[in-house]
C-alpha cells in the first residue's frame, strides 16, 4: 500500500491511498484503502490520514476517522490521536500496520506497530527525510 497526506498553501488538507491488497486474496476481497473513514480520511477541521496494514482491522475500527474524531472530540494532538489508534486500539484488536497523519498547522505523525514502514515527509522549507526501519 502507498499513501500521501498533504497540506497546501490555502490551508486545505487531502489524503490518498492506493494498494494492491493482500497476496492470494479471494472472493473479491476489498480492504480498507478505498473505504472512506477506514484507511483514508481528510477533514480540514482535524487532519488527513492514510493507513497501511491489515485492512480488516482498519475497517472494523474506522481507524482513519477515529483518529480525526479523537482530535475533534477529545482535543488530542495529531501524535496523541494517531498513537492511540495505531499503537493501542489496532494491536489490541489483533491488527497491525501504520498510518500517516497531518493537521492544518503542518503537525504530522507516522506511527506504526510493525517492524518497519516506508515513510517520509517534506516541509515548507523543502526539507525532506525518508525512513524505513524503526
Amino acid at each position: 500500500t502507498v499513501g500521501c497526506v498533504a497540506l497546501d498553501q490555502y490551508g486545505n488538507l487531502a489524503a490518498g491511498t492506493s494498494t494492491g491488497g493482500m497476496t492470494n486474496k479471494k472472493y473479491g476481497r476489498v480492504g480498507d484503502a478505498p473505504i472512506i473513514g477506514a484507511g483514508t480520511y481528510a477533514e480540514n477541521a482535524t487532519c488527513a490520514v492514510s493507513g497501511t496494514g491489515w485492512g480488516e482491522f482498519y475497517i472494523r475500527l474506522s481507524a482513519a476517522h477515529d483518529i480525526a474524531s479523537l482530535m475533534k472530540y477529545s482535543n488530542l494532538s495529531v501524535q496523541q490521536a494517531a498513537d492511540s489508534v495505531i499503537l493501542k486500539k489496532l494491536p489490541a484488536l489483533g491488527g497491525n500496520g501504520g498510518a500517516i497523519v497531518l493537521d492544518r498547522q503542518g503537525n504530522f505523525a507516522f506511527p506504526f506497530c510493525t517492524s518497519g514502514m516506508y515513510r517520509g515527509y517534506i516541509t515548507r522549507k523543502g526539507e525532506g527525510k525518508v525512513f524505513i526501519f524503526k
Partner: protein
Amino acid sequence: GPITLVIHGGAGNILRENLTPEKEAAYRERLTAALDSGYAVLERGGKSTDAVIAAIRIMEDSPLFNAGKGAVFTSEGINELDAAIMDGSNLMAGAVAGVTTIKNPITAAYAVMTKSEHVMLTGKGAEKFAEEQGLDIVPNSYFFDSTRYQQLLKAKANEKNREAQWIDPYIKDKKFG
C-alpha cells in the same frame, strides 16, 4: 501556509537484515522522488489533492510498492487494485475497488470524486468509467512483477497448512499493504 507532505509506502515485517543495501537505496530513491513530486505541486501553489496524486503516482509506477505496477497477486493470479482520495476542504471523496486495467488507480479515485455523484465504483464499472474519463488503461499484464508472483506461489504452497502461514515471517507479510 506551512505546506507539508507526508507519504508512506507500506508497513510490515521490514527488517534491515532482510533488505540489501541496493534494495534499500532503491526504496529511498523512490520515496524521495514521490516526496519531490508532491512537493513541487505544493510549491507552485497547487492544491493538496493534486499533490497527493502526484506523489502516489510515482509509487504506483514503481514495482517496489504494493500499488499499481508491482501490486500483489490475487488467488486467481491477477492484480486487483484499490484506491481512494479525500478532499479535507469539502469532505468530497472518491474511490475505486477491484480494478484490473487502470494504470493509476488514484487518478480514477479522483475522477470518481470530481466527475461523478458517487463515492466508490468497483470492478468492471469502475474500469468503464475510467475509460470514459480518458484515463490510461493497460492490460493486466502491465502490473506483473516476478517477485510478487513468487510470493503468490509461496502463499499457495503454504495454504494447505494454515498454521504455517502464521509462523512464517515471509508469508505474514501477505496481510500488509
